[in-house]
């Protein structure tokens, strides 16, 4: 029973991580590409860590909560790196699909 549950969690985690990386290849400008790997992975890695915590708690006989720390550090660092990448891209005026903020588009944001 738990085996099935754990397998599902790991599959879901792998799937989300894969889709996140797929975003890197499929999306078409720097800013939208930022969303794929930083986001879909939040849930992907989350699922994998829950699976790991449950497995090692049952296997080792004592509660394993290392995974909580991994989640915590991930949640602290991921947004900071995404923010800095976006900020650097704005500074370098990287090509963007969305109208960049300094030159507001005349009409609604639709091309």
């Amino acid at each position, binding site marked *: 029973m738990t085996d099935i549950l754990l397998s599902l969690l790991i599959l879901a985690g792998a799937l989300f991580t894969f889709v996140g990386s797929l975003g890197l290849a499929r999306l078409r400008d720097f800013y939208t590409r930022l*969303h794929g790997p930083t986001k879909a992975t939040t849930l992907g890695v989350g699922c994998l860590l829950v699976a790991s915590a449950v497995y090692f708690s049952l296997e080792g006989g004592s509660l394993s909560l290392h995974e909580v720390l991994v989640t915590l550090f991930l949640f602290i660092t991921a947004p900071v790196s995404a923010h800095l990448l976006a900020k650097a891209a704005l500074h370098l005026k990287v090509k963007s699909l969305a109208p960049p903020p300094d030159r507001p588009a005349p009409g609604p944001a639709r091309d």
Partner: protein
Amino acid sequence: MKRLPQLPSRKKTPAFYALRRVKACMPHPLLSLSLTVLWLLLVNSFSAGALVLGALLGWLIPFATSRFWPEAISVRHPGVLLRFLGVFAWDIVRGSFQVAGLILLGPARLRPAFVEVPLALKTDLGISLLANTISLTPGTVSAQLSADRQLLLVHTLNTDDPAALVAEIKQRYETPLRQIFEEGDA
């Protein structure tokens, strides 16, 4: 001794001095508690020895890092905080499915946009927590804070209605953060 945080009661009652002495011994009780828990998680055991060492570290580290914590942090509405964490977790799950769907179904149809969120939050802690929350919930990344700290520039993967997105960010994340960390500061 460093400048002590302003306490709500200005009257110099004995309780005021007692509280001030406690604050001098333990400047950031919440930080101390989190560090102790962090230590217990790191060693992954809950023996008495680990607890004592963790408590000691939790007590000492805030003194060594006091420069990083110019404001005393206090949580005002634990209930609101719990509800905020719930909303946050739900939004991560919901948003992950949305972003996955957008990536799989067709990047050609995306309408990305930059939106500007006018900030009502004033403290460093509040603004950084809001920016982190926005970046962690899938579909939005906080890109830049204006120099006067009034506007947060947010990039969104797909939106039809930027005004609605701004209203949602303000209502879902900013309002609870203000209640938890800033109410009564103004």
